[in-house]
């Protein structure tokens, strides 16, 4: 692997969820009823590369497909279309050993720390299960290994015999982190991993993520709707809207000079300490249904700068500055006269 070789690459990856028609609906359609299979384009032709050691923030409103994208990266969903490359090799072509390695190499930290832990297993069992199942450490050393992992994430190893409900939210999330760390991953996909925690505990867990990144050289795909968290952590930020990537840039640049109208609107809404009496201007309207996305640019119904082309043609993601990509017709078309 060369230094330039990305750890993972997604090439025009799409994920569609289709609800098949049941018998009654098929019969009804046979008689001419207007029933169609419902398809959700959760992820629509997304390109994404993540390099080793990088922290990529993935931001978007709820329902924009960022969790689905995260799950594709973590191997929980198979993409409907497109290729997923691990260290430059498409995952289908990986050797058995490498595929087994990949299965553990990318781990996920979930949003709800309670739901992501099996309530019937003790903390020690949760952390040690995969280690034992895959024989990552000799049996005799497993207990010590689990204790070490617990210590590493800031948990007292004496709590190994407790059940998840006996821990606080922050501690549960630490168990989830220890569980992922125990299989020696290269990359963590954090899906809204701190959203369910109190703010003070969020900070602790975020700090833990950063420490772990330094200690283990981890790569992160950090999914969040919270721009503040993403700004704090990420090297690079990817903004998604309704299944598509709309903007991608190094963190500092994105926050300094957002290009896409959606990003601009998002950044406007970030509550700041100095905001004072500033009024918030929420983005107009609701996020459209991903079952029936608007044609052209997905954002045009809510975009203050939308013009005719936006309603017809889907803008491509183009590099507007080094490392800064944006998908907006405004970049290639002169702004129409404001009336």
């Amino acid at each position, binding site marked *: 692997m060369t230094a330039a070789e990305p750890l993972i690459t997604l090439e025009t990856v799409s994920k569609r969820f289709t609800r098949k028609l049941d018998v009654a609906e098929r019969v009804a359609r046979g008689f001419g009823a207007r029933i169609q299979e419902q398809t959700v384009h959760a992820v629509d032709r997304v390109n994404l590369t993540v390099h080793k050691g990088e922290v990529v923030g993935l931001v978007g409103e709820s329902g924009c497909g960022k969790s689905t994208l995260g799950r594709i990266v973590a191997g929980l969903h198979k993409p409907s279309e497109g290729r997923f490359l691990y260290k430059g090799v498409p995952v289908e072509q990986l050797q058995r050993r490498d595929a087994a390695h990949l299965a*553990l190499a990318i781990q996920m930290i979930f949003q709800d720390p309670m739901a992501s832990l099996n309530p019937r297993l003790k903390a020690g069992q949760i952390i040690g299960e995969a280690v034992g199942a895959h024989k990552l450490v000799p049996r005799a050393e497993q207990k010590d290994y689990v204790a070490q992992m617990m210590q590493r994430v800031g948990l007292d190893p004496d709590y190994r015999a407790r059940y998840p409900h006996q821990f606080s939210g922050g501690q549960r999330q630490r168990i989830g982190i220890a569980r992922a760390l125990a299989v020696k991953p290269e990359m963590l996909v954090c899906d809204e991993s701190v959203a369910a925690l109190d703010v003070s505990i969020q900070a602790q867990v975020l700090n833990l993520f950063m420490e772990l990144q330094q200690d283990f050289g981890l790569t992160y795909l950090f999914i969040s709707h919270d721009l503040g968290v993403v700004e704090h952590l990420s090297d690079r930020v990817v903004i998604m809207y309704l299944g598509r990537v709309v903007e991608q840039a190094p963190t500092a640049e994105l926050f300094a000079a957002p290009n896409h109208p959606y990003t601009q609107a998002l950044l406007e809404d970030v509550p700041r300490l100095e905001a004072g009496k500033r009024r918030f201007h929420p983005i107009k309207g609701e996020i459209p249904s991903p079952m029936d996305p608007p044609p052209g640019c997905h954002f045009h119904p809510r975009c203050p700068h939308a013009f005719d082309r936006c309603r017809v043609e889907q803008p491509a993601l183009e590099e507007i500055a080094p490392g800064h990509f944006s998908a907006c017709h405004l970049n290639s078309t002169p702004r129409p006269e404001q009336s």
Partner: protein
Amino acid sequence: MTIQETQVQDEVVPPAKDTPFRRTLREFAASRVAVVGAVVLLLIIFAAVFAPWIAPQNPYDLNEIRVEHSRLEPGAAGRADPESQSLPVPISGEGESGRETLELSGSVPFESAEASWEWVAPERVAVSLDLQPEQNLKTLEQELRVEGLPRGAELSVGEKHDFRNFWLVAPDEITAFEVQLPEGHEGGFELEIRAQQAEGEIEQVYWLGTDGQGRDMFSAILYGLRISISVGVFSGALALTIGLVVGLTAAYAGGRIDALIMRIVDLQLSFPAILVALLLLAILGRGPDKVILALVIAQWAYYARTARSAGLVERSKEYIEAARCLALSRWRIVLRHMLPNCIPPMIVVGTVQVANAIALEATLSFLGLGMPQTEPSLGLLISNGFDYLLSGRYWISVFPGIALLVTIVAINLVGDRLREVLNPRMRRDE
């Protein structure tokens, strides 16, 4: 920031002793009705399990039941055969008179007896008996039997049996009587007087009466409970296992397998359970194994449906995704992650379904298709007593019916409360 610093007690940790089981128990105990139900149920189960040691008799051991005691009312005393005593009176032919202490066989009703006789004529002898204690004569409601009289001899008291060679004498007449011997009789003879008490000693009281074969209903109910509950629990456990495997398979596999399994389940559930069981037993015949088989076939679908829905709920939870992310095998995920978390709803369905199985088995037995007569369950007991209902002998049917009712109500009370406690949607806290 160092590790030590991150190791902050960010929130209060609940005490370690608060296991899910204890919490469930505590919540269960909050309902008084459910606790009563649980206590009653435990008593019933205890009585059923230890029936051979608790029951006054083994109602199916022919040595222990007495046909004479059939159809006794509740509270009737079951008595042993009345004690009898024979008093041999050796009357010698020599001398005018004589006196003899009698050798008694047995201690009841008399402790000692003396006989004295006097020949008042060559063929006529007066006999008097001194029986101690004398008041025991009054307990003899039956007449005494005087045997061993020479052929043709006649007594001055009592009456001869219609065709047999003994006389029956009322107790108050036995102390003094005369014997008229036939002409030409010489010498002595030996009388044998048999005293029989009117009532035997009370062996047991049939608190719930007896049935047509003289079985103690209380014992029969205990044994019947034993059979009913074991059939219910056994078939329930079997159906639960099958349903759990099938349901979880459907939930985890999804797609066509799920659709196929659930259509079979729907098909099964569209028939009433009683109809399915009736048909099966009509084909298979009687017997506990066949009843259990029929109940399992009639009921597995309920469990399968519950297991599937519980499995689907669990499958969508993040810890299953986490397990998949950790590349754990399918079996491991299903058995170690999904299955234990599907148990609470299964327990709820299980308790209610066991009650249903017991009721169903009782119905089948009542209809004459369930258990054989040698292993009568509560349903068969009710059925046996049904013939007597119109003759006023209500207890043969009614008491097993009450036992069945109480059992099913107790199980349902416990089941309902378990559903409240174990079903997160009905939970008040959290």
